């Protein structure tokens, strides 16, 4: 692989990781502030929907942090792999598969944030969220094939 390509991938990956780190921090802080002092962020706890509100708040905080963490892990493994001449690290397949439900959870909880503030009482299930999560599964399957082909290629004498 060309050295320039490796440098470009590494630079873009680092930029994404910084962005993900900040996003994860924001999501965690938002969630934490919401739990500790709900009145400051306008969380309106409803007795009828408290369990669902807790699910939304927790899912948003943990799902977001976990998803950004998984992206960072994916990129770190990719950069490490490139340095060792491995284009498709096998461990990234598991990360991609796991990212799919986590992303769905995060998007679902994010889109239903209105339930926390009381601005909406209707459950919102966006088809885009399902599509993006399924695309991630397809990407993981393609990545798995790429890992196998890469392994075979490296064992071709």
């Amino acid at each position: 692989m060309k050295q320039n390509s490796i440098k470009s991938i590494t630079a873009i990956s680092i930029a994404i990781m910084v962005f993900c780190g900040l996003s994860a921090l924001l999501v965690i802080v938002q969630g934490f502030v919401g739990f500790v002092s709900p009145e400051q962020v306008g969380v309106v706890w409803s007795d009828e929907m408290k369990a669902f509100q807790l699910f939304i708040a927790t899912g948003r905080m943990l799902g977001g942090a976990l998803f950004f963490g998984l992206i960072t892990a994916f990129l770190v493994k990719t950069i490490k792999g490139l340095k060792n001449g491995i284009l498709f690290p096998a461990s990234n397949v598991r990360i991609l598969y796991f990212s799919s439900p986590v992303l769905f959870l995060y998007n679902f909880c994010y889109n239903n944030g209105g339930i926390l503030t009381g601005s909406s009482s209707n459950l919102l299930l966006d088809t885009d969220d399902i599509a993006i999560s399924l695309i991630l599964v397809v990407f993981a399957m393609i990545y798995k094939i790429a890992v196998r082909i890469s392994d075979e290629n490296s064992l071709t004498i």
Partner: protein
Amino acid sequence: MSIIVNVDVMLAKRKMSSGELAEKVGITAANLSILKTGKAKAIRFSTLNAICQALECQPGDILEYKE
């Protein structure tokens, strides 16, 4: 896999070392070891050609099918 690589046998017949063969063929000793131990998934025609040339043998002398 049922394809057996008999490079070791040919090396012994020709009284040639692995290092010498690797050098003649133009592959690394590590790759030759992968080939000898049967871990290789595929072999290029160019590599096979070079091995046959170096060992003065036929592809059938190096590769064998066993059920």
